[in-house]
């Protein structure tokens, strides 16, 4: 079917902020129009990535906040979501947009740069596919294939609560939460939009319509799509969808790595001692903070230098530093490791 169907669902429950687009994607048939959907959750919750273990979350903190956890069928880590975020999704039947996955994702995300500009964010897509303003990520995006459809999802963050976002993650000590919060505050949505959500919606519709050469129109959800959404209401609200999904995720690996954005990572042990957190920013260790006698102290000697000093410091403290180095190398965090050495 020709045309770009645009549906603004407005403010919805946390569950519906996920079940709507999962249901639309799952129900997509070859004749279903490409759809651009928008919604905001009326209350905060935690979204857990398709392949992440529930053990990565701080359940005590989440329960004390009285918020829910919903697993999404797109990638990435566990994220705190709230009413200050506008979610958007581009949904299409499988096979409508062909090419390498990364190219399809970029093709469907790039038109949103105009929408960010419409709300005062001079955003660009960097070489890693992140939508950024300077070094700051301003869009949490992902993509997935569910039954007959595929979806590319993202968000406009009007205000990001970095300290709460850090607190919902499992950590061995509040010191690690502080470091995560500091990193998130610097690298996630620290530049705030000045425009309104309505401007973003209008601009995104126009820009995506032009890029795909489809005429946009205000659409509605079909009966079969509503049934699919209601099925996902049930699936996503079932406790086992988070705790023991159909495809069980692996347990967290020690040491644990939190990706703040592409190129920015925090590494720390979830268990054992001593407790430390090592941060890597664009290929270089920026901080190594170690808890000694209950007091957090920066190992200043390694700040801003290649990672090898940090690895040596960890080794000197009896920490299995090879594991840290291997984990960082595994996610490509160490940048120019070989040439630096």
């Amino acid at each position, binding site marked *: 079917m020709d045309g770009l169907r645009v549906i603004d669902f407005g403010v919805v429950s946390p569950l519906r902020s996920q079940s709507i687009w999962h249901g639309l994607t799952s129900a997509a048939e070859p004749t279903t129009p490409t759809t651009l959907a928008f919604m905001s959750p009326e209350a905060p919750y935690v979204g857990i990535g398709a392949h992440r273990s529930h053990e990565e979350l701080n359940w005590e903190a989440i329960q004390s906040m009285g918020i829910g956890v919903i697993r999404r*069928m797109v*990638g990435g880590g566990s994220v705190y979501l709230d009413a200050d975020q506008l979610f958007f999704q581009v949904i299409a039947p499988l096979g409508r947009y062909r090419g390498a996955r990364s190219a399809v*994702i970029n093709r469907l995300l790039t038109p949103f740069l105009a929408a960010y500009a419409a709300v005062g964010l001079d955003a660009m897509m960097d070489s890693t596919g992140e939508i950024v303003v300077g070094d700051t990520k301003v869009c949490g995006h992902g*993509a*997935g294939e569910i039954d007959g459809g595929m979806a590319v999802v993202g968000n406009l963050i009007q205000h990001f609560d970095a300290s709460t976002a850090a607190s919902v993650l499992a950590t061995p000590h509040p010191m690690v939460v502080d470091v995560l919060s500091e990193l998130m505050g610097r690298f996630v949505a620290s530049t705030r939009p000045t425009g309104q959500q309505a401007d973003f919606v209008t601009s995104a519709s126009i820009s995506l319509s032009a890029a795909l050469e489809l005429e946009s129109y205000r659409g509605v959800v079909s009966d079969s799509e509503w049934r699919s959404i209601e099925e996902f209401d049930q699936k996503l609200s079932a406790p086992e969808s988070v705790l023991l999904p159909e495809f069980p995720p692996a347990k967290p690996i020690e040491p644990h790595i939190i990706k703040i954005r592409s190129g920015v990572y925090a590494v720390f042990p979830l268990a054992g001692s001593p407790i430390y957190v090592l941060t890597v920013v664009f290929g270089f260790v920026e901080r190594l903070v170690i808890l000694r006698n209950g007091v957090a102290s920066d190992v200043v000697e390694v700040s801003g230098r290649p990672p090898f000093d940090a690895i040596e410091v960890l080794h000197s403290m009896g920490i299995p530093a090879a594991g840290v180095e291997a984990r960082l190398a595994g996610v490509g965090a160490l940048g120019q490791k070989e040439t630096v050495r």
Partner: protein
Amino acid sequence: MSLVVRGSYGIDTELWYPQEGDYWLAPTSSGYRVGFDSLGLEVNGTLSHFAFVGVGTRVNQGDPMGTLEAEKFVGPISAPVSGVISALNDEALAQPSLLYRDPYRTWLVTIEEVPKDEVSALLTGDAAVNHFFERVEEYRRMGVLAQ
């Protein structure tokens, strides 16, 4: 291992290949180990996570037996043959980068009780080579691979 390489892609002619999907199969004493071929690794992008149904689960050919994540994209992993999942390679699950180091030795799952008609449809040797490089060209035409 006997590798046939043309351009950026190679295929091990001593393994077995389904006619659909980017997998290889290696017979074991009780079933088949399954991995991604070099084309599968290329089209999926940089894989960061896998998850599979539990050991003991029966799967049908073509149905999802797991999910993969690459560059924040999550999609299904289809079963190349029917049977019962009898083992998962925990090492590869923990370190997906191993697949890129040795794609034709790094297996993902073992499937047992594979029906004979599906076994007889698997390709090997020259037939597998021809089929593999036809798929390379097909993916190029679809724009999935660089020219």
